[in-house]
């Protein structure tokens, strides 16, 4: 509860701050402080020190899993603000508002971590997405940014429509918005498990959530929006927001999909989505010329891996999705932080970076290795848990093989960046690099390696 309410309050504080604080540069410090407060408050909440105790009538459910994810999300945002906060003020004059929007997003994220009702799910999704439409279009004088925002809004509205329809069907089939359903006494159960209406509703919910996590074939908005949006915000969207989408998704799967799995073969549906996502993400990323666009496709490909947790919905998958969220968020934030500093976003723009900025190149290499899932980085264990979860279910083993093959493809486009940085001659031009920025990158790289060596450092929180 702390995180939901405090993030909303802090968002308001940030908005007021735009009137009261004169120096633009101070906003990011206020924001970073706010995230720190959120982080501490959320941890306190985990151990039962809640500031706001009131009855939410079962609309929210506070679990260890939700708390831990929320902590990871807030911590990632904190890192994000610390190393790219400076860049946020580069777009327009309304820096404080951008930070305010980020806090609104965090409010939605927290809601998704704890929702236990389709209405809170809807609220969380919308609170999270609407600020993103604005952030996407925040580079007002840039046509691409405007185009991306409009596209995002149009398609986002479409998926919202589908989601609402799904919720309505589900309500029609069960008589409740709550996730916990008693299906006894409902007439005409399909396969004696759930009403047909509910299944249709769940299918539609699945589609809309697949849209949010940019799973194929509902991913089309992703490359255009990620490419068009200012890079700093792409970074935010591709990491924390996407991970939150997955947390919402896996919760729905754990409760509703598992209960109805005798009526509809969800594994088959997810298998189709996973294959499509891995294929589109990985294959398309191969041919991209811009690193930013490549990262957009790579985020689709990574989503393909995260979908495995929805496929296998067991304890391993729950642990895995947390690890994946942390690993993927940290690495992507790092890569985008470097990308934002580059003058040229194409692969050629990275040529010879290792000679000019050895530390940037080295840390960027760690991030890329983590995304590719190379051992000793967090990405390895993240992928390992995902695939192990599927192996534990004992079916669809061929899917694991397909995933590994696509992971091999992904090595190609991630290593293209490393190759450009280290083995090609060129004059990679960057913005001015401050020592604190370098320190931030080093911290992220160290975290990635730490998690890669000892993944229990995160997962132990689930149980203690």
């Amino acid at each position, binding site marked *: 509860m702390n995180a939901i309410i405090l993030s909303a309050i802090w968002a308001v504080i940030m908005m007021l701050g735009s009137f009261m604080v004169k120096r633009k540069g101070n906003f990011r410090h206020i924001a970073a402080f706010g995230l720190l407060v959120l982080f501490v408050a959320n941890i306190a909440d985990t151990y039962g020190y809640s500031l706001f105790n009131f009855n939410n009538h079962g609309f929210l459910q506070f679990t260890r899993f939700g708390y831990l994810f929320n902590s990871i999300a807030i911590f990632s945002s904190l890192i994000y603000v610390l190393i790219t906060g400076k860049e946020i003020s580069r777009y327009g004059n309304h820096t404080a508002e951008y930070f305010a929007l980020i806090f609104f997003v965090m409010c939605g994220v927290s809601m998704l971590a704890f929702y236990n009702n389709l209405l809170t799910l809807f609220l969380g999704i919308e609170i999270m997405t609407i600020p993103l439409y604005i952030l996407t279009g925040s580079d007002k004088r840039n046509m691409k940014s405007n185009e991306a925002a409009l596209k995002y809004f149009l398609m986002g509205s479409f998926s919202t429509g589908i989601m609402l329809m799904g919720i309505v069907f589900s309500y029609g089939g069960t008589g409740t918005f709550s996730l916990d359903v008693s299906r006894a006494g409902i007439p005409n159960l399909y396969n004696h498990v759930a009403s047909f209406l509910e299944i249709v509703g769940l299918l539609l919910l699945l*589609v809309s959530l697949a849209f949010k996590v940019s799973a194929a*074939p509902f991913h089309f*908005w992703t*490359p255009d929006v990620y490419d068009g949006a200012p890079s700093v915000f792409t970074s935010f969207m591709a990491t924390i927001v996407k991970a939150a989408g997955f947390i919402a998704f896996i919760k729905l799967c754990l409760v509703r999909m598992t209960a109805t799995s005798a009526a509809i*073969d969800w594994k*088959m*549906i997810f298998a*189709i989505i996973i294959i499509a996502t891995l294929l*589109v993400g990985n294959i*398309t990323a191969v041919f991209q010329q811009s690193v930013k666009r490549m990262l957009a496709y790579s985020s689709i490909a990574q989503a393909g891996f995260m979908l495995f947790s929805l496929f296998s919905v067991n304890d391993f998958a729950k642990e895995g999705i947390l690890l994946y969220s942390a690993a993927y968020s940290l690495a992507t934030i790092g890569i985008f932080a470097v990308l934002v500093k580059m003058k040229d976003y194409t692969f050629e723009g990275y040529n010879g970076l290792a000679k000019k900025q050895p530390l940037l190149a080295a840390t960027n290499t760690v991030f890329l290795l983590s995304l590719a899932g190379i051992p000793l980085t967090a990405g390895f264990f993240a992928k390992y848990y995902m695939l192990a979860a599927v192996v534990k279910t004992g079916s669809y083993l061929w899917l694991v093989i397909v995933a590994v093959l696509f992971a091999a493809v992904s090595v190609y486009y991630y290593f293209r960046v490393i190759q450009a940085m280290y083995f090609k001659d060129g004059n990679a031009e960057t913005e001015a690099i401050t020592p604190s920025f370098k320190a931030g990158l080093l911290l992220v790289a160290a975290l990635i390696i730490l998690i890669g060596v000892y993944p229990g450092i995160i997962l132990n929180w689930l149980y203690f």
Partner: protein
Amino acid sequence: MNSIVSLVPLFPLLGFLINGLFRKSLSKTAAGIIGSGAVLLSFIISVYLFSDIKGNEGYIVNLFDFINVASFKISFAFQVDQLSVLFLLIITGIGFLIHVYSTAYMKEEVPADFARYFAYLNLFVFSMLLLVLGANYVIMFIGWEGVGLCSYLLIGYWFSNTDYNYAAKKAFIMNRIGDLGFLLAIFWILGKLGTATYSEVFDLRNTLSETDITAITLLLFVGACGKSAQIPLYTWLPDAMAGPTPVSALIHAATMVTAGVYMIARSNVLYAMSEVSSDVVAVVGLATAILAGTIALYQNDIKKVLAYSTVSQLGFMFLALGVGAYTTGVFHVMTHAFFKALMFLGAGSVIHAMGGEQDITKMGGLYKKLPKTTWTFVIGVLAISGFPFTSGFISKDEILISVFEKSQVLYWFAVFAAVLTAAYMFRLMWLVFFGGFRGTHEQEHHLHESPAAMTIPLIILAILALVGGFVQLPEAFGGKEYFNEFLSPVVPAMSHEGSSVATTEYYMLTGTVIGLAVIYFLTRKKFAVSMFEGVYTGVKKFLADKWYIDELYDAFIVNPLNAFAGFLKSVVERSGIDGLVNGVGRFVNYSSRQVRLLQSGQVGSYILFMVLSITVFFLVFWNQDNIAHFLTNIF
């Protein structure tokens, strides 16, 4: 207090680390003191252990669990008993002398290389100590591999010379072939018994079938062949002369080549159970002794002669092991360590004086300028030839008697090998030290005795070579076999009792004296003058060219393998694998270009795709049973 043994390998390891890590900043004096000092400290502790273990039970010192997987456990443990302590003394004692000698011999090197040299030397000693101290075959294998690595590093010490690198590679590869045998033996033991610890393996030996025992012992022997340079894996040892001369002394006397003998002596319980393996060991050993002896007869490189003599003497050791005289084999390791180290260091002194010249046809008459080197070397020659009551006489005598009791045929072959030994050694002695000088004027002018750091080790070793055998003087000559007694808790001795043995001893003594006298005059005549006329012909050429064994290996193994590798590279790799791999890459690239077109930028078409997909999902839901059925049929 027991764990003091872990200090023995620790000091050389530290020496290696210090010299290795700080080689750029250490002065030569510092590097030399650290290198030699580390081994000296180990030697002092070894002496303590020796005085401690005498007449006591051996014990095992567990340091930590090396491998611990489920029920399978291998601990990093040291075995302290009479056999291992004896080897500790040889390794650290002789090793220390060689280190001291090296400080003078290598002083032309630049400081960084000098420290590198001592780092390798320390690592070598460390590996050998690990090999000897390990309480199970796995730890022995670690040391075994370490020794192989260090020999590679030291033989290729002057790595800018391609030939030397080639020799280093050859040593490494030959050793690896042997190592494979050793490794298979370890796997076999682990597979059958679930443990590699000596005491446990030996306790459980009766649960093994005869085939198991034979296979294990033969595979172990393959390993020993590699490390101890026996037929067919001996060819690396003569080439190993590429390293600095003290390294040769280290390899030939104190470390490395004795590893195989140690291993078989350690496993004597197993070998005693297999008649076949023992016979193989004996015959291979004897054949090696003779083959190497004949080759040594016509080599012109001073180090090559000594190298083949080592191979030949190792053959003697294996012969002893093969006929069941395990203590005798180990005893010969010890005496051989004395006189072979002595002669190698002596050869180093000669080469040093000759300004790098190694060809004995260009030497001669060195006794005038190098008295200390000459007389110590002569003692070495007498010892290796078996001059009565030198250490070599006593050990070789005992080998011959043991063989005699086993088989008359083998005995006469062994005698022949012993005659060969005396022959090539006397030849070497005549050509190098006596007669007139045959080198250039500058060389003659340059001749000088070596510094004290080199001659003092020579003198110590000469004394040992002379009197070191008395610890095992046969009773027939009024001695007592202290050596056998010392080792008896670990290695059973072959008893030679009764009056017939004494008679044989006296016959052998007489025979040796007469034989040596004959060889003395023969070699003096045969080799002194006619040697330098030019090329060898006939049998001599055949022997001088080492029986063309290297050429044989090249023709039948190396070249066919190279050709096969070339085929794999040019055909399978280039067109097969590369084609496949690049094909996959091209395919992915092509797909990428096509799939990319879906991303048209038109919101309308995106929405259309989404709606179509939703429809597909409903269709899948509708037909899920058919699809599931279809999928199970495929996978």
